[in-house]
């Protein structure tokens, strides 16, 4: 405890005292992130204001061998920013400036604590577009998005966060500051190290600035909703749309259980006996959008949709999209504990996987609603449970293991967009196999030999 005392004194001296929190009432709210049932109180929480202060903090932590857990807004869903015992939480929300928007190179440079939505809003002011739209984009920070390689609803057409990161400033475990990448579209000078840090979950370095690629903002968008009597028919529709050389920006689905919950919560007039609801959107040039929308409706009809609605304007589009937008809220209200999973399979296996999840839920007497991104095979089986019901939590664990096992058997991944963190690390070796799992460790040991950054996350 004495060593902690001297450490706390030095860190308070290097930052302003009001930017170091040590009281119980201040620390308890930093014991968790957006992940269910994971909690650990840190030693302290610090708020640096720039890269130099982050570097100073990391140097001090390295000197005192105090682990560092980096945090943005704490919305992660795999426990990536949950503290470890006696750690410093490096909270980067005050590095919140957009530094440059370069309209000639279509890039944006921002500090890591800028809110994701503010990045897209800033781009929109210049007719530009930052496509990744994770569900928490109204509050998640861009640094957190890069560290977790966040996805979103537009994965199929626009990809994920990784596809928009051109460069970054990163503080290494010894406190050195490295600049990776640049504004050049083509750059093959050495290893693409920025890619190593994207999705590294705070275990290799602390990203303090990012350089992002922007796109021209699509001018038009059209929204459609189709209802099906079987998930297979919805999946066939998706395959047929892609086979027709249309790449929609949104292809989202809800299963029967989720549709039922949405209807009882939001009362938007959905029939509750449908097996699948498919929300489709296409964006781009107005003429192309009209043409594609008409084709998509026709394809949905040919593939057995029992009802199809096409929005005539933005307002109606928003109404149709509300079914998908309300999905998580509607499920979250049913039981005290909501566990949001994100297993992902190749698109062609999606219907099989949804069916398997429903059967697994029935077998273990659990409530699992599944919704997600049909275009990219990313599913969100959502467990509705109660963490205080220990007997049920055992069944949740069992069901999760079976779902993960089946996902891997189908050639899928244990996490499409939430990250491994603490929540998925017991499954990682199973998916990667020994050789590639050990390779991860080799990388970690090479960059952070004393395991000071986010120890115990991704793997032990």
């Amino acid at each position, binding site marked *: 405890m004495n060593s902690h005392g001297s450490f706390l004194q030095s860190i308070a001296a290097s930052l302003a005292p009001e930017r170091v*929190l040590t*009281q*119980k*009432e*201040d620390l*308890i*709210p*930093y*014991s*968790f*992130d*957006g992940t*269910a049932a994971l909690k650990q109180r840190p030693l302290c929480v610090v*708020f640096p204001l720039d890269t130099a202060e982050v570097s100073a903090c990391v140097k001090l932590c390295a000197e005192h061998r105090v682990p560092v857990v980096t945090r943005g*807004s*704490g*919305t992660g869903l795999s426990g990536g920013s949950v503290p470890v015992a006696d750690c410093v939480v490096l909270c980067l*929300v*005050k590095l919140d400036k957009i530094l440059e928007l370069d309209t000639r190179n279509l890039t944006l440079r921002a500090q890591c604590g800028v*809110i994701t939505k503010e990045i897209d809003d800033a781009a929109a002011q210049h007719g530009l577009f930052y496509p990744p739209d994770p569900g*928490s984009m*109204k*509050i*998640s920070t861009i640094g957190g998005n890069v560290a977790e390689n966040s996805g979103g609803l537009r994965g199929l057409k626009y990809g994920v966060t990784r596809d928009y990161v051109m460069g970054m400033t990163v503080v290494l475990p010894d406190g050195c500051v490295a600049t990776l990448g640049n504004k050049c579209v083509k750059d093959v000078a050495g290893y693409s190290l920025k890619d190593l840090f994207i999705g590294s979950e705070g275990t290799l370095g602390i990203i303090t600035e990012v350089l992002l690629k922007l796109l021209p903002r699509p001018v038009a968008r059209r929204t459609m909703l189709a209802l099906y009597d079987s998930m297979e028919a919805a999946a066939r529709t998706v395959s047929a749309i892609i086979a027709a050389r249309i790449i929609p920006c949104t292809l989202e689905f809800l299963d029967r259980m989720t549709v039922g919950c949405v209807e009882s919560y939001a009362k938007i007039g959905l029939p509750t006996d449908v097996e699948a609801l498919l929300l489709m959107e296409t964006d781009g040039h107005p003429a192309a959008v009209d043409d594609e929308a008409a084709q998509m409706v026709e394809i949905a009809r040919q593939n057995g949709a029992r009802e199809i609605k096409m929005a005539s304007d933005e307002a109606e589009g928003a109404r149709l999209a509300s079914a998908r937008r309300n999905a*998580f*809220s509607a499920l*979250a*209200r049913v039981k*005290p*504990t*909501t566990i949001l999973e994100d297993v992902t399979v190749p698109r062609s296996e999606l219907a099989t996987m949804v069916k398997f999840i429903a059967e697994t839920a029935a077998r273990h007497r659990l409530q699992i609603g599944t919704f997600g991104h049909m275009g990219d095979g990313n599913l969100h089986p959502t467990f509705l449970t*109660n*963490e*205080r019901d220990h007997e049920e939590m055992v069944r949740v664990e069992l069901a999760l293991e079976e779902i993960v096992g089946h996902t891997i058997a189908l050639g899928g991944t244990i996490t499409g967009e939430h990250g491994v963190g603490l929540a998925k690390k017991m499954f990682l070796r199973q998916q990667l196999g020994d050789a590639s799992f050990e390779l991860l460790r080799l990388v970690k040991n090479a960059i952070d030999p004393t395991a000071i950054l986010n120890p115990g996350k991704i793997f032990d």
Partner: protein
Amino acid sequence: MDYSILQQCMHCGMCLPTCPTYVETKHERNSPRGRIALMRAIADGEMNVSRSFGDEMYYCLGCLACVTACPAGVNYVELFEAARADVEQSKVLENPQRSFWRWLTLEIFFMKPRLLRAAGVLLRCYQQCGLEWLARTLRLIWLLPGNLRKLEPQTPRMSDKFSNALIDEVEWPRGEVKHRVALLTGCVQDLAFSDINRDTADVLLANGCEVVTPRVQFCCGSLHAHNGAPHLAAELARKQIDMIDPESVDAIITNAGGCGSHLKHYSNLLGGDPAYSERARLWDSKVKDIHEWLVTTGFRKPAAGCGMSEVTYHESCHLCHGQKITRQPRAILNAIPGLRVIELNESNWCCGSAGIYNITQPEESARLLTRKLDNVERTHAPAVATSNPGCHLQLAFGLRNRIQSMCRTVTQPVSMLAAAYRGEPTNEGQHDSR
């Protein structure tokens, strides 16, 4: 503290960007998610109700923006009220001055409506006979203790006549009676904005309502419920129900956002009282915000303008977040001929009035007021409408000190509608007071 409500929070963080105190400090403890974590830590025995916890609960505005943002439907109102009651019970914030003011307001003035009105009459005399002018001119105000001196400019101006003098006990519309409604005149509304109560009655009469306005009305108890005195809130809820039998009217109308949000949940306070629980449920179902009532019953579109060409609209937190009434006040403004409604950026962001927050947390309140007025100014509207006496006073106070602002008028949608009805060519008075 109801553990099942605490547990409903899945700490996703969606409340953070809507919480004015979190946005100010970026500290988790100043956010709804952080506050709930502290409440849960107390429930789990990890910490006690401490002074620091008490300070945090009173730093919360209680604006309920988090309730609108919450995907999991956490009932933050109940948590926040229970937490403040715990803070009071454990006396962690107690000091003689605070106890005196709590006693004077919660237990005396806002429990005894006749006394409150008498105080209002005294204040009116002081303001109207020139004493206030004299005190301000001679800087006698400087004799007041520091806190009071700072608050003095915010003293609401008392109405020339209170609601009783402006509204008869029963008023009938011209023509067919379509509905029978009771009108709640409020406390601050009655003293400072009795004309808005008159306007409310006029608008109801113009829409075929027989309006019953009880003479002596008690405080609705929201002040008590939000300030850790649930027993007094329950007592006031009983008095309200005794005053207006919910069976006897089609609706109980309130025109103050803050009161309405509380008035609709008497069954929470009286659920365990067999003598009242049934009537409390009926009461809750009968309480309607004036805008909500007008829009559901299909109010008559006025044939004349209200004498104003542009207005912007600031939403009372407890109207939009507490009662989810957002569309209706705008529908009323949009129905007034010749009136352009300019949307206010961050219209549902708290103005810093927040009950008595401007008294308890003057600095944070002032920051929120500045943020609000900056947004109002950007609309270039000459007037701002709102629908809660607290917001009304706060905006008017702020605008008085911003002489450069284009916006010179604070009004309410119901007053603008009343003015439009009054301007109609065939209007020869809307009611009989038989």
